[in-house]
């Protein structure tokens, strides 16, 4: 079955520390992979996407992610977080057709 697993439901981190949000996917076909951010009471905003090519993808707000086909992972990283990065982060992939498979989300909480 096609699925996305976000391994951490919550990640607390101090401001200016690095962070990694983990995502694993399960699919038997080629996938397009995405990370979205959702601030309180707002919609989903695209952070970055992997379609093909370079496995290291850079996105907005200083985030980057690395696609690892052998480990079926697409972990999101930021070298130094800010208070304003506190939000919910969703990993997702497009297996084809009109369906988007979302992970359950990871709540990033940045502490001063």
């Amino acid at each position, binding site marked *: 079955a096609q699925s996305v697993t976000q391994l951490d439901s919550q990640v607390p981190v101090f401001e200016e520390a690095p962070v990694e949000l983990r995502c694993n996917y399960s699919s038997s076909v080629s996938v*397009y992979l*995405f990370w*979205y951010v959702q601030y309180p*009471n*707002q*919609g*989903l*905003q*695209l952070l970055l*996407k992997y*379609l093909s090519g370079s496995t290291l993808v850079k996105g907005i707000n200083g985030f980057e992610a690395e696609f690892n086909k052998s480990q079926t992972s697409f972990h999101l990283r930021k070298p130094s977080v800010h208070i304003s990065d506190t939000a*919910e982060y*969703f990993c997702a992939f*497009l297996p084809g*057709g*009109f*369906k*988007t498979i*979302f*992970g*359950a*989300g990871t*709540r990033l909480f940045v502490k001063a």
Partner: protein
Amino acid sequence: DAMVIQNPRYQVTQFGKPVTLSCSQTLNHNVMYWYQQKSSQAPKLLFHYYDKDFNNEADTPDNFQSRRPNTSFCFLDIRSPGLGDAAMYLCATSEASASYNEQFFGPGTRLTVL
């Protein structure tokens, strides 16, 4: 700027009183989606329109209906809202002819049921 717009951003309704949520887009995409998102959960697809073709997810309750009168607008109708329907409702669009079906999301409407 091309965008997905949802109105209202916050909607309060009474138990059992029909409510309609609105979504419009300036992207001219041919696919529009409605998602329900409950607190601390991933968005759950309710249905989507591909042009005029309506596609309902198998587990979407009959209480939820949708209309797409033209390319730009799509409505979500909840015929008899229950307390369990309180959630954030997200509209999204995509272009089916694109090489991948990236979805663009609106800001959402938070529905409260009293």
